[in-house]
């Protein structure tokens, strides 16, 4: 708890990290209170053909789409999809990637080598290509997008945790814990895991942004949540046939994606600065 408070206080001091924090907070609030914030909460499903492609202004702050639905309302509900994708995909990646990284780093035998080779391959092929392939074969749906992203993002955690674990094993405090007869489980859970927590937290924040971006790309390519779900990437792809006239149609969802991903990236950068004093941005020099 005190650690969380410490982090929060440090975050307040770093302007850009705090901005990131606020942006994410805003996203979460939008998602929770979408039904109350949205002027036309029913527009996620409803059609109003007479209101098609109305420019921003009046009662439609961000204009309307090809079905005459209020884009602002749809964006607010889209925040829910975005959060679910980010949290579940990164969460599953954590659950797969971290244990594999810890075990492979700790035992370091042929099997862990094999696991690392496999994760290398996942890293060598662009994530988007693998995700497209998986999402396509499983059939386009929100759940399959989440599955595809989870299956392709875990190697990032594995790589990170593996490298950190390998270098921690050379530390004296780990060596002495092993020498004192601590069981492998104890060493991994109580000695190694707390020390790799910082990079994992940083990677989680950046991974959220990255995953949301990839999910939007899949949505854009038609592989994500199916209409009428207000998925942001899909909204952009729908808008293309109405360009250049309905410019707001493409602009608004893109800005939403940008702001959210920016929030996670800023937060991740700030957390890195706070948690890893070696690469702090500050210019304080030793006399």
């Amino acid at each position, binding site marked *: 708890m005190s650690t969380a408070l410490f982090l929060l206080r440090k975050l307040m001091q770093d302007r850009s990290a705090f901005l990131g924090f606020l942006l994410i907070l805003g996203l979460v609030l939008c998602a929770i209170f979408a039904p109350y914030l949205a002027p036309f909460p029913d527009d996620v499903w409803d059609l109003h053909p007479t209101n098609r492609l109305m420019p921003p202004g009046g009662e439609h702050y961000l204009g309307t789409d090809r079905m005459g639905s209020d884009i602002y309302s749809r964006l607010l509900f889209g925040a829910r999809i975005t959060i679910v994708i980010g949290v579940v995909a990164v969460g599953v990646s954590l659950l797969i990637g971290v244990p594999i990284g810890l075990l492979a780093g700790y035992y370091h035998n042929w099997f862990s080598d094999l696991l690392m080779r496999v994760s290398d391959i996942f890293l060598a092929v662009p994530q988007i290509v693998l995700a497209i392939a998986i999402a396509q074969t499983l059939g386009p749906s929100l759940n399959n997008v989440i599955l595809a992203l989870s299956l392709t993002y875990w190697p990032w955690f594995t790589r990170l945790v593996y490298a950190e674990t390998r270098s921690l094993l050379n530390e004296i405090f780990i060596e002495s814990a092993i020498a004192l007869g601590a069981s492998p489980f104890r060493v991994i859970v109580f000695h190694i895991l707390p020390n790799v927590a910082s990079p994992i937290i940083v990677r989680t924040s950046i991974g959220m942004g990255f995953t949301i971006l990839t999910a939007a790309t899949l949505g854009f390519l038609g592989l994500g949540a199916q209409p009428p779900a207000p998925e942001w990437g899909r909204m952009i792809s729908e808008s293309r046939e109405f360009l250049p006239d309905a410019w707001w149609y493409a602009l608004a969802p893109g800005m939403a994606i940008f702001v959210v991903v920016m929030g996670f990236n800023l937060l991740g950068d700030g957390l890195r600065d706070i948690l890893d004093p070696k690469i702090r941005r500050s*210019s*304080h*020099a030793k*006399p």
Partner: protein
Amino acid sequence: MPSPDLLTVSDLEVGFATENGTAKVLDRVNLRIGQGQVVGLVGESGCGKTTLARAILGVLPMPAAHIGGGRIVFHGEDLLQQDPDTVNRLIRGRKITFIPQDPYGSFNPLFSVGDQIMQLMKWNSPLLEESGDKRSAWPALFQPYPRARYRADREKVLEVLRQVQLPQPEQALKKLPHEFSGGQRQRLMIAMALLSDPDLIIADEPTTALDVTIQAQILRLLRQLVKDRGISVLFTTHDLGTAYEICDSITVMYAGQEMESASTEAFFGRPSHRYTNRLLESLPSPDRDIQGIGGDVPSLVDPPGGCRFHPRCDYATEECRQARPDTETLDDDHWVRCHHPKRDASAEPHFAGQDNVG
């Protein structure tokens, strides 16, 4: 006999921004370096000697460091008041050169020694005055190096490399820094400091990183070379033995203030400041046990008032807590900044409660 001053530092104040506030690393520091003199600047780690050396060179880490006041007068002109660009062009690296502490890290690992030496010569060669200085015509990176001067400069480089007794100087220029031993690298560093025929060399703990056996050789070489040429040296070190071997006079610093300055002979023979005494007692000697100095080095962010040494001084009085002592001249070239200096080794006053001062 006091020689005419080449460089005087007066009331120099330097602060460093830290997370806890400003650290007053130099608190109104004074220093004099005579023509042709080798001046030792001794003190514990963190006492400010390296900061003083860097301040004279004008390479304090900005913007963390901040010069609060004072003067650094070289050849009669205050370096702090001059245009920084002019200082960089005409003085730094030419009239005042530098021998760093770390001969391993101070070479750029990716460039041959010859490239680095000739780059110095390109900008600092003593021949520059004669051939006219046209430094600002081009961006520095693309400025050509005139052929004729290059050849003359290269001859000079080889000559100096022979003087620092570096074997096979021609081949040495083609090598990369990591192909030399530590001692050879420090010989190269000395040579590089001599190339521009400077008036003053700032040597910042130049032997600390070397093996003890090589230290003595390098020190003798350095002293002989500067004495031959009449170059002044500011030599910082935390090792009193090294200072004894090479210096003509010694200034001792403590927690950002200078405490005592004397000729080497007087410094070791008739030390006056209480801190100097304790420092000398901390040297190993067959006559007595080594004495440490009780207490801790004070914080520079919130230093003790008055004399900064008073919390650790056995002779401290209320006066020491309140006011910073003025300098008291004891002798030609020997002054001390202490309210209660030790006047004479034989006539030591009260030893109140002291039973282990040797």
